[in-house]
């Protein structure tokens, strides 16, 4: 009997969907994304008649699809799902049962990472598309909505879709390193949401580090007006690179530490 990798994928799939917390976290992601987008769009829809001409001219409808404050929940929940997926196994001792069945630990981690990334990508696609569609439908009533063909619109939707697997894999890497559920979630949250605040975007090197963090990269890719006026704004290709490097580094870190450390 050959050892098939797809059996490991199926096993991780069963494990993920046999926990209630998975459903709660994914529902929180989808619902909070759409609700906060609708809220932002409704606010602009309501205030639109009072906006002066120059404000209307510089209005960025895509920002209403992906408002930072609402998508904080998305990042937090996505990071937590990733962190819990591995740290929860260590904390409960389940990891030893897993390794008795599959001594090839690198294969176990690779399967986990694959399932996590695929599920989060699917949820991200639903959340980002729904947020874009709902917010732009609301704004269209004021002739202020964007269509997916507008400059930056598709990029914003794709970046917001990918934000979920990016945050989840970073959470996974932290979870593999910390191996306790609550600390892993706290460290992930700190890394994703608080670390960007520690850097002064008006200073060159400080801004460079800021721009190399995953959440500022997302902000750049969705073209939030909050980040655009600063002097050291990141490039779009640079931000895509940040998007690629973080999750890949986190996944590799997880493979290495899980393989090397004794459970």
């Amino acid at each position, binding site marked *: *009997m*050959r*050892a*098939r990798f797809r*059996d*490991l994928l*199926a*096993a*991780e799939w*069963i*494990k993920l969907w*046999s*926990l*209630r*917390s998975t459903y709660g976290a994914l529902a929180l992601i989808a619902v909070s994304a759409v609700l906060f987008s609708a809220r932002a769009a409704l606010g602009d829809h309501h205030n639109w008649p009072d906006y002066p001409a120059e404000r209307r001219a510089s209005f960025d409808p895509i920002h209403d699809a992906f408002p930072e404050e609402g998508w904080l929940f998305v990042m937090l929940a996505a990071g937590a799902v990733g962190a819990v997926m591995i740290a*929860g*196994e260590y904390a*409960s*001792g*389940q*990891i*030893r*049962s*897993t*390794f*008795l*069945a*599959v*001594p*090839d630990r690198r*294969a176990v981690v690779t399967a986990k990472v694959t399932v996590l990334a695929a599920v989060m990508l699917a949820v991200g696609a639903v959340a980002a598309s729904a947020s874009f569609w709902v917010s732009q439908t609301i704004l269209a009533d004021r002739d202020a909505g964007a269509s997916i063909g507008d400059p930056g619109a598709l990029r914003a939707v794709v970046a917001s879709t990918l934000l979920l697997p990016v945050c989840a894999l970073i959470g996974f890497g932290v979870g593999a390193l910390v191996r306790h559920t609550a600390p892993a979630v706290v460290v992930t949250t700190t890394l994703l949401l608080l670390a960007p605040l520690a850097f002064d975007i008006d200073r060159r090197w400080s801004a460079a580090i800021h721009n190399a963090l995953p959440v500022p990269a997302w902000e750049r890719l969705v073209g939030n007006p909050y980040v655009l006026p600063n002097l050291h704004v990141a490039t779009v290709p640079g931000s895509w690179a940040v998007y690629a490097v973080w999750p890949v580094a986190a996944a590799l870190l997880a493979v290495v530490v899980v393989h090397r450390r*004794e*459970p």
Partner: protein
Amino acid sequence: MIELRDLTKRYGGTTAVDRLTLTVRPGHVTGFLGPNGAGKSTTLRLVLGLHRPTGGTALVDGQPFAGRPRGLRYAGALLDAGDVHGGRSARAHLAALARSNGLPRARVGEVLDQVGLSEVAGRRIGGFSLGMRQRLGIAAALLGDPPVLMFDEPFNGLDPEGVRWVRGLFRRLAAEGRTVLVSSHLMGEMEQTADHLVVIGRGELLVDESLAAFAARTAHDRVVVRTPDPAALGAALAAAGGVVTRNDDGLTVTGLPAGRVGELAFRAGVVVYGLHADAASLEEAFMALTADRLDYAAGGR
């Protein structure tokens, strides 16, 4: 078959397992004994590849277990009944394990039946008692129908019926030609379960022999007699060469077989209420053997 050769594990300055060389053979239930902290659990984890040895080798059916891509068909183990995620149902837990090894889904139902958990299979493991978790751990060990099975303290938390069932299961598994290694820190449990004994203390091998051989080399045939006239009987037994000590309701005699004691009592015309050879000496032998190798002795030496 499990083969250990010079197996050694050090954590920092402490040696948990010290050059252990040992072969655990198929067809037997091998009791793996030692006081708390002797290195039993560490040894099992080394054999199963969860921990890496500092030195030496551990082979399961000729190969290091850690080198197997999938493990359930080669060895099954219950290390700690708590090694499960409490949020899952018993069925989902086993289904994921079975699937990871490409085992048919039907095996889950079979092992659940075998351990008697079919009726609670859909309930979350978090609500299980320790005894139920032990059964679930045994079910997981049996999933791949492996030739080698290891159980770490499997009797913990089991009710008397459960203990009897587990003993029967271990004997059946051994009779089928499997290698069955069962660890415990209580000799009494092993006496009725194992037919071969391995005893370690502070990580070193102390005993590796059959239960019968272990019993033979340590038993100093003791006979307990209950009598209303211990003085007369004691004198008669002492005259015949027995060493006699008095206790609450009779005498304890060493140096004379039970039959000879009864004969002497009859000749001396002493009434005897009860007479039996004392079989509780295995526990004492184990205690004597490991007394100087206790990590945590009561009474502060």
